[in-house]
């Protein structure tokens, strides 16, 4: 089985600050990490490889610095990692990104057909979750988003059954292979890489493909030119206003319950706190 995992290197938002004047992210000096959802996708790919055999190829589009992220994927057990990097790719939105990655996946598939494309559900820095569906559309493959469990995979029958998180519940879906799956963090707990894989990763030199390697000769599809999205304004939401607090005496549960219901029905902006009989409040 050949699994491709598409990843993104993102700034570690636990260390990101917002410039109060321009309202944009201050990226300089912020360490980069593999987008957290993508690590779960990678882990799932490695688990499938361990179960069914085969290979895992990782691909990303980004600047040369993304090599660090790719090397890290080798420490988890990926077999090969490919960086799509070209000055012309700069400024790409999700549409242009999915175009370049699509070309890369086609090229990867030429060497060995791809059975499964795994991605993280969304990226920490953009939160759009648009690239995987874009890839699925371009590849003409089914897309299964927000997957938190792979129930079964039958290689011979070329089908896969997964659990998807949907609004208010879950969905169990069956799809044919190849398909695109986006993983949520609930799908697994990523491993602590073994020492031999750390050494392999330390030595690994990712393959780099530029525009020409990918056979892209139409610049209108890539980078800034291929990006119809315009970000007109970015702002940090102001601090949330707190409503008043009403304390309900919980010594009589029934009375407390009906008071609570009344409050919630009529004053939905109130924060309600129920004090149980023994609690002291000052």
């Amino acid at each position, binding site marked *: 089985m050949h699994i491709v995992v598409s990843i993104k290197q993102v700034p570690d938002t636990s260390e990101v600050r917002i410039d109060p004047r321009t309202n944009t992210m201050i990226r300089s000096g912020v360490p980069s990490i593999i987008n957290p959802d993508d690590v779960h996708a990678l882990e799932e790919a490695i688990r499938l490889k361990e179960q069914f055999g085969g290979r895992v190829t990782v691909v990303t589009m980004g600047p040369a610095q993304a090599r660090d992220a790719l090397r890290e994927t080798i420490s988890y057990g990926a077999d090969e990692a490919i960086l799509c990097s070209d000055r012309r790719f700069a400024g790409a939105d999700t549409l242009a990104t999915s175009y370049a990655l699509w070309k890369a996946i086609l090229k990867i598939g030429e060497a060995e057909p791809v059975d499964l494309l795994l991605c993280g559900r969304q990226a920490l820095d953009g939160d759009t979750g648009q690239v995987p569906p874009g890839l699925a559309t371009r590849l003409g493959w089914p897309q299964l988003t927000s997957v938190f469990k792979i129930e079964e995979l039958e290689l011979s029958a070329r089908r896969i059954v997964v659990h998807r998180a949907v609004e208010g519940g879950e969905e169990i879906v069956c799809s044919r292979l190849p398909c695109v799956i986006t993983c949520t963090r609930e799908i697994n707990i990523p491993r*602590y890489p073994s*020492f031999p894989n*750390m*050494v*392999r990763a*330390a*030595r690994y030199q990712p393959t780099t493909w530029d525009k020409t390697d990918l056979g892209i000769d139409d610049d209108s599809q890539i980078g800034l030119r291929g990006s119809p999205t315009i970000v007109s304004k970015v702002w940090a939401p102001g601090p949330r206003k707190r409503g008043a607090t009403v304390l309900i005496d919980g010594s009589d549960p029934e009375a407390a319950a009906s008071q609570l219901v009344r409050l919630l029905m009529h004053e939905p902006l109130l924060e309600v706190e129920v004090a149980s009989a023994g609690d002291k409040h000052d």
Partner: protein
Amino acid sequence: MKRLKRRTLSEANLAATDRFDVVVVGAGLAGTAASYLLAKAGLSVLCVERGEDPGTKNVMGGILYRQPTEKILPGWWKDAPVERPIVEERIWLVTPDSMVQGGFRSARYGEEPYNAFSVLRVKFDKWFADQAVGAGAVLVTDTVVEDVLRENGRIVGVTTGREQGDVHGDIVIAADGVNSLLSKKAGLHPELAPHQVALVTKEIINMSREKIEDRFLLNANEGATIEVFGDSTMGMLGYGFIYTNRDSLSIGVGALLSDLIKKKINPNVLMEHFKSHPMVKRLLEGGEAKEYMAHLIPEGGAASMPPVYRQGMLVVGDAAGLSNPIYREGSNLALMSAKFAAQVCVEAHERGDFSAEMLSRYQTLLDESFIMDDLRGYSKTSSFFQGKPQFLERYPEILVDALHEFLTVDNVPKRAKQRRILRQVLSRRAPWELARDAVGALRALT
């Protein structure tokens, strides 16, 4: 047994993941220098560092010296992330409300190739490690070495905290810093005693370049250092320091661990005490504390050093106790010891001989260099000043009061003033005590 000599880089790169010519533990100054030199000599070398990146765990004042570092990487300062070349070094002797100062400033130090630079280890170590990797060393970070690997009593590698974590090497270089776990595991020395280490706390305080240059009387991009003795350590053996970085100050204070324990002084309290000294406070005003860290420094010089080699293993840098804090030297000793160790590894590799006898060459190289000469001197200094708080408490006060008396203009004839000063001094310290301390200090420092 003659082994293949000088494998090319790509061959070394293709080698198995569990065997290297040399395994270096720690990517600090010593470990990275050794890795760099060994890789350049064509040996396969693995360097294992516990920090997420080299430098993230490391603390130094930090003044890095140009010339010793050049013994590893000629011209390093042209590319390396340095903060400011140091053009002025000051020494302060302080009492709670006064200070006596001395210093040296030279325009020569402001010219290429410079003498010393302030550095931030987080940036410098990462860059330095990149040079080693560029030369062909394999660097594995985020991985703790937990023990040495033994086979029939011989050291044959190390074991890390990861799955399948054993890795073999003909020689292990312990470059894991002060209080070296590895040399303890190899049975080279017991746990350090509290009088053999100093505990230093350090803060990085952000400040604009202009403010730094105004306050320290510096031309653009030049740097200064201040070492502060006396009340800065509340009478304990140690000192405080203030160094200028590009747009921050490094400030720290440290004292012998045994003194801190004896006086029951919390290192944070010591730091606050230092920062609130009127002369220090003035320099920090308007700065914004950014980072806080603490670290040990090996004390006691040659007398506290563990054996630095055994069959299959060499110990370098702070791990070997190579530190001369009174002269603010440590980085240079780490780098030079790494160079000697690398040299011995290459010779051992060429002969295929990793015996204790072969590796004892390293001890000889240390002995023949300035390192052991200085560290024997430091042992003398350190043991003399231990348990003699008068040098950092009583004498600064006596000196300050004498100068205060002398410089206060109050219509008293100069001769009478001199007599008054002498009387004051002698009332606080007997002549024979003064004589004994003066002779002792002179001997200890020379």
